[in-house]
Every structure is written in C-alpha cells, then in structure tokens.
C-alpha cells in the first residue's frame, strides 16, 4: 500500500522489462456491429410480417424460408468461388435482410422455384458480382424482384384476395391455397376468383376502363376494410417498424421522409386537380410497397446516397419516380424500378452533395 504524497514510501522506478503492444489510436470503440444493424432491421419487419400472414395467409412464411435458405446457400457459394471466408459473411445478417425484403415484395402464392431463382439472382447478380457486402451499387433485393417481374409478369402480379375483403372465405383455405401455389399447382382450377391483382393494379385497370376513382374505391373487393385491400394494414405495420428503426437510429429520417414527400406531394397536387382519376396521398401512402420501400428498401445504406443532403435528393427521386410509374407507367407499383433508377444516380448525387467541411467556404 502506498501512502500518496509521502516521499519516503514512494518506490523509485522499477525496471520491469515489460513490452507493450503499440496499436494505433483510438484504443476503444463503441462496439456497434453490422449484425446488430441487420438483425434490428429484421426485427422491425415483424409487425408487417404478422399483418401479411393474417391478411394474405401463411404464404409469406413459405417464401421467407425458401428465400433465406437460398440466400445463405448463394452467399456461401459465391464466397467460395471468390475464395473468401464464408463464416463472417453468413453471420453478418446482410444476406438475410435481402432475403426478407424480397420475400415481402413477391406475391405469397409464387411457386417456390421462382422465389429461389429471384433470391439467388439477387445475391449473385445484385451483390457478389460487384464484390459482396458494401460494394453493390444496386439494392440486391430489388435486382431480384425486377428480374422476376419482367420475366414472370403473370405469376408476379397474382395475389390472394386478402382476409379484409368480405367475399373471402377462411384463413385456412388461404393457407391451403398458399401451399398449393408454393408447390406450383395450377391455381386457376380450384382457386379461381380467389386470387387477383393487388388493389393498385385493380384501380389502374378500372381507370383504364373509364371508371372514376370514387366508384372504384367504393367497391369492397378493391378497398377492403381500410383501403387498398390488405395493403393498408401491411403499410401501417411497416410504418410502425420503420418508426422503431428511426427511434433506434438504425435509419435516419432523411430517406423515408424524402421518399414519402416525393410520392405524396405530387399526388396531393394531382388529386387536387382531378380527384376523379388521380390517387390521393392517403391511398398512395398506404397502398402497394410504399412504407416498406420508404423505410426498409430505399434506406439500404450501401446503395443509397451517403450525405444527409444527398439522401434527401435520393429519397425524393425514388418517391417521384414511383409516383410517375404508378400514374402513367405500365406497372401497378413502381418502387422497385424507382429504387434501381435512383441507385444509378447515387454516384452523381454523392458528387454534388458533399457537405461543407469545417473551416471551408460553402
């Protein structure tokens, strides 16, 4: 025991011959990890998943399992071909996020091999041809989704009629249909009239046939209990999950707010100009993939713009392109293409949105 300040008892230098490690500063880190980020994202998808299963039957769970298995296999194979260690990459959770986002985007009735094909393409063509985690210029899940959509348009637009439409039978029948669809049975024989397009798709077709928007929205088989036939609930649940991610600071506000702004501001103006044919902001916000795209897909940091200001441009571009495709395009929903197009613009956005550095002129 040393009595401080008493010179008599303070020992002089003792040669210890100890050698210490001289690693560079900083010597301490917060200990945040990529897996933590990824698993928080998966966790935040749970409410939307529950809503999805409750309304559209258990097809999502089947799609999730095939997507996750395929994603892990494709990741492992790709790393093996690239002569990399597979273990850390499989554990980082990023490939599971890709699998989840793709499974949430595709119809729950899709035959399993299409889900597997889309996932494999997402991981291989969307991610590993560019060099794996952190290197992909495009959102991998949207690469897989877009390939499936343009290659299998019929299968990719056939959804079950959800539980919140009065004419629907029971959830257990939805379950049987989902399993049949998963194994690739011909659904038209037994389940015809039980499947259909999404609400957005139906509205588009109705408008093409010269119906007015209020007429279409008055129909139970389009609106369901809350609007947008099933999707309104999923969007609400995705919004809840997204707000959770923002609260945990996994996702910053810039991209979601900009995506919603880019979609809702033009739709508000168009709806004000002609409410007979232009979808209003509420319907736009809670139909199709809006919330999933705003909070989970567009926010993929690897393929997004990187500064705060850049993220605002990037998100607004996605919202605006999605609105354009929904209004005039050939596809009922436009988020996959909107995200991919804005992915292309990222290097350009990043170049012109470098924030002002301390001590430099703006």
């Amino acid at each position, binding site marked *: *025991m*040393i009595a*401080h*300040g008493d*010179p008599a008892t*303070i*020992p*002089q*230098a*003792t*040669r*210890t011959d*100890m*050698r*210490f*490690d*001289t*690693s*560079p*500063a*900083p*010597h*301490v*880190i*917060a*200990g*945040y*990890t*990529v897996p*933590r*980020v990824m698993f928080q994202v998966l966790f935040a998808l749970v409410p939307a998943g529950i809503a999805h299963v409750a309304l559209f039957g258990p097809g999502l769970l089947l799609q999730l399992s095939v997507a996750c298995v395929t994603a892990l296999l494709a990741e492992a194979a790709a790393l093996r071909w690239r002569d990399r260690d597979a273990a*850390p990459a499989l554990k*980082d959770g*990023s490939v599971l996020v890709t699998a989840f986002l793709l499974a949430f985007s595709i119809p729950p009735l899709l035959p399993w091999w299409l889900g597997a094909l889309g996932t494999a393409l997402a991981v291989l063509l969307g991610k590993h041809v560019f060099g*794996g*985690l*952190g*290197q992909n210029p495009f959102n991998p899940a949207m690469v897989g989704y877009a390939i499936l959509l343009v290659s299998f348009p019929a299968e990719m637009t056939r959804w079950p009629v959800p539980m919140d439409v009065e004419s629907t039978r029971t959830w257990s029948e939805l379950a049987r249909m989902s399993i049949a669809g998963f194994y690739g049975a011909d659904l038209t024989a037994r389940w015809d009239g039980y499947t259909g397009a999404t609400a957005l798709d139906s509205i588009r077709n109705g408008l093409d046939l010269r119906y007015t928007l209020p007429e279409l929205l008055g129909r139970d088989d389009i609106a369901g209990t809350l609007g947008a036939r099933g999707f309104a609930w999923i969007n609400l649940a995705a919004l809840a999950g997204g707000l959770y991610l923002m609260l945990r600071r996994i996702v*910053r506000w810039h991209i979601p707010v900009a995506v919603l702004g880019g979609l809702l501001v033009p739709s508000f103006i168009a709806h004000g100009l002609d409410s007979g044919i232009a979808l209003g902001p509420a319907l736009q916000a809670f139909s199709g993939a809006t919330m999933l795209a705003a909070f989970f897909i567009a926010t993929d*940091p*690897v393929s*997004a713009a*990187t*500064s*705060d200001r850049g993220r605002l441009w990037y998100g607004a571009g996605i919202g605006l392109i999605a609105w354009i495709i929904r209004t005039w395009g050939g596809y009922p929903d436009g988020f996959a293409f909107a995200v991919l197009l804005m992915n292309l613009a990222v290097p350009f956005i*990043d170049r012109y949105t*470098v*924030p*002002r*550095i*301390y*001590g*430099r002129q703006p």
Partner: protein
Amino acid sequence: MAARSTFHAGLALDAHKQQACGTPIVELPPPTQVVLALDQGTGYSAEPVVTVGEAVAVGTLVARTDHPSASAVHAPLAGIVVAIETREAAVQGGRSVCIVIDGDGSDRIDDSVRPVADPAALSPEELVQRLRDAGIAGLGGAGFPTATKLASARNLGAHTLVLNGAECEPWICCDDALMRSAADDIVLGALILRRAAGTVRCVIAIEDDKPAAIAAVTRAIERLRDDALTLAVVPAVYPQGAERQLITAVAGVEVPSGGLPADAGVVCQNVATAAAVARWATRGEPMLSRLVTVTGSGVAHPCNVRAPIGTPLAALIAASGGYRGKPLRLIAGGSMTGRALPSDEVGLTKAMNCVLVATRDDIGSRLGAVELPCIRCGDCADACPVGLLPQQLLRAALADAHDTLRQLGVRDCIDCGLCDYVCPSQIPLAHRFRDARRRLHEAEAMARKAADARERHDLRKRRLQAAATAEQQTFESVRDRARRPGDDSTGDTN
C-alpha cells in the same frame, strides 16, 4: 457563461475520470534518473548544448533550438549528464535523441532561475522571447511551443485568447485537478499570456461536467475583477477540447481550413500552460515539471502526479501504486487519441497529459474488433466534428485517389477517432486516414522533387544547347574567316 451550442456532431463518451480525480495530487520527489527527449512531442527536436559527463543543476538549459516547432529543454534535477543517445520516446516515430541525467540528490539550482521581477514591465516581444527561452510548451497534449503561437497571434492581430480547460478526452483529469487546486495561478498566467499575445480578451473554457473546477476558476476570476477575463462553460461533448472545435464553441468563428487559429482572430492555450507561465513569472522556473494523470485499470491507485519532465513512466506508475492485473497497453494520452508506447522506460514529455495503463477491461472493445466491409451507413459522418464523410474518404484512401482525398478533406481531419468509435464495421478509419495523409504527403514531395528535377534538366539542356550554338557560331565565324581571308576588306577591289 451559459453552455453554448457547440460544433457539428461529436459524441458524449464514458468519461472514466473519477478513478484518478478523487485522490489528491501526488508530488513526485526527484527521480534518480530522467530521460529528456529532445523532441518533446511535436516532431521537431532541440539541439543539445551539454556533453556527456557535464554537471547540471535544476533549470540548466540542456538543449536549445531556433525551430519554431521545437522547444528548449532544461534539466529538471541536479546531477550529471550520463548519456546523449537515441532512445525510445513518446514521440512520432517512437524514437528521439534523449539526454539522460543521473540525479546527485542535491537541489542545486541554476543561476539562470530567477523570479521575473515584474512581468508587466516587459514588452510583449520580450515576454514572448523569455517564454521561448523558458521552454514553455503547450501542456494540453500537443506540446507546441507557446511562444510560436503567441508570436503568430501578435502578427495576425488576434483579439481573443481562449484558455482550454475543456479536457474532453476520457480518462484525463490533470487539468481538472489543476483548476481546482491552482485556479489563481491559471488566472495569473492568463493575464501574462493575454498581454504577450496582444489580445483584447481572454476566455477560460471548461466543460460542464467539472463543477468544482468551474467554481474554483469563477472565484479566482471574481477576485481579479477584470472584465476582459471571462469563463465559458461548454457542454461535455467529445471532442470539445480540440482546438478548432473549442474556438468555434467559445468565439463563434471557424478556423479556416489549412489556416491557423490566429487567422480567425483567436489563439488557444491550455490552462496548464497558463499555470506554467505563472510558475515561470513567480519563481523564474522554466518548464521543468508537469501534472500528469496516471490511470487505467492497470495501475493500483490512479491519481494525478506532479513530476519532473523526463521522469521514466515506470517511476510514475510506481508512484501510483505500481501495476495491477494484466496491463496490455501503455498509452500516452487518453483512450481516443493517445499514443501506445512500447515500454515504460520512456520519459515524461511536456506533451504527455496522461499515462493510461490499459487492461482488457479498458480496451477490450478494440481488441475484440472484427473488421467488416464498409456498409456506408454514415454513422461516422454523423459523428465527425469536422463534417467530413469518412465513408467516402475510406474509398478514396483505399484507391489512393489523391485528388479526391484532398477534396474530401483528409487533411482537415483532426484525428479525434470518433469515426472509428461508432463504426459498426469496426474499421480502423482514423489509422487509415493517417496512412492516407502520409502517402499523400510523400506523393506530393515526390511530385515536387520530380518537377524540380525536370526543371533542372530542362535548364541544363537549354544551357548546353546555348553553349553548343555559341561554339558552332564561333567555329563558323572562324571557319568563314579562314576560307575568305580578304573578306575583312570588302571595300578593297584590288
């Protein structure tokens, strides 16, 4: 006095200060030997003016310098110079020429050590020169010569002197201890520094997590009744004590990129430097000792020690009860920016404010780090106090893209380490950027050298050509004359 909104971003870190700050200051008796690095932490060395075998007294000048970034070194104890040789030191590159002095146990004081009769009678220029001669250097961690900063402040007409008592880095609390115990010294030093720098006002800045220091300095200022000496309480956010960030918080101006604080009208000094100036004024003592925090889970009794410059770190650690547990890293400075030293035989430098003996408990997060690829999440950019985009800098650094590195401000990086701290991919960003700066520097030096060589080559070629042409002309004129000898008298037709 109100806490002001400070700079862009930053982060509140675990302070780890209670360990050393709870105990009283330990006055270390003169050690048996001191190892004085001639580079006191700035990267520039003084030149020895003593020889091996020479006797020195307390305060004897042992190394002098004319370099603006190096400071004079004085013997902190009486004894004999036993070696002048390159040794491991707590400096950039890890080695410096050191003067080793064995103490003779006496407290013989050099004749040059005399109290300054009346500092107010000295002209500011004289004052700056005397501080330079006394080897006064910044005690905040950089060790930069105070006189050089004061001179540039005078030249550029700075109006505000900021005394840095923020002490934002985890573990370090020697400035806190000093402010609590010697606030009057700090205030006296502040007045001298203000006069030397020629500034109108002086602001002492302290982080709001040091209430006792704030109270002590407030009382000292009140006793003085000087309207141009005020206190600013700033939020405890890392890196509040970084020079540029503190200047922005206190004076509301930004130091221009690549410029000096004085370009923004501000000069910054550490509170401990002010106290050292007061010691010089009242006792005539050059910079012979400093207060240093000895802490970490690897020492038995963390505390603040006043020790002679050059004291081997082993002696400091012994004064703090010796090693405990399994020390893994010996860090000069705090956990964010400190330099890990290879051995405890290196001497205390003027720049060293902390000796952190770290065990796995203290640095486990770094030891266990697994690096993954960058996912561009931008957490680093959110934390960066300079407003850089480390995620983009990293790409440029890996590609060695020098123009991009310059544009994105790799040289504006203040090396605070926050990007590392928050990175979920656990990438050693600060180190990568240090590396990138070094390579950038080397490439620029190489380019300058190449341009220089090209110019020299071109000039030489031109000279040779000119000489050849001249020779040719001479030859031709001589030849012409030889062929037509009568040519000189063209008028003669006969």
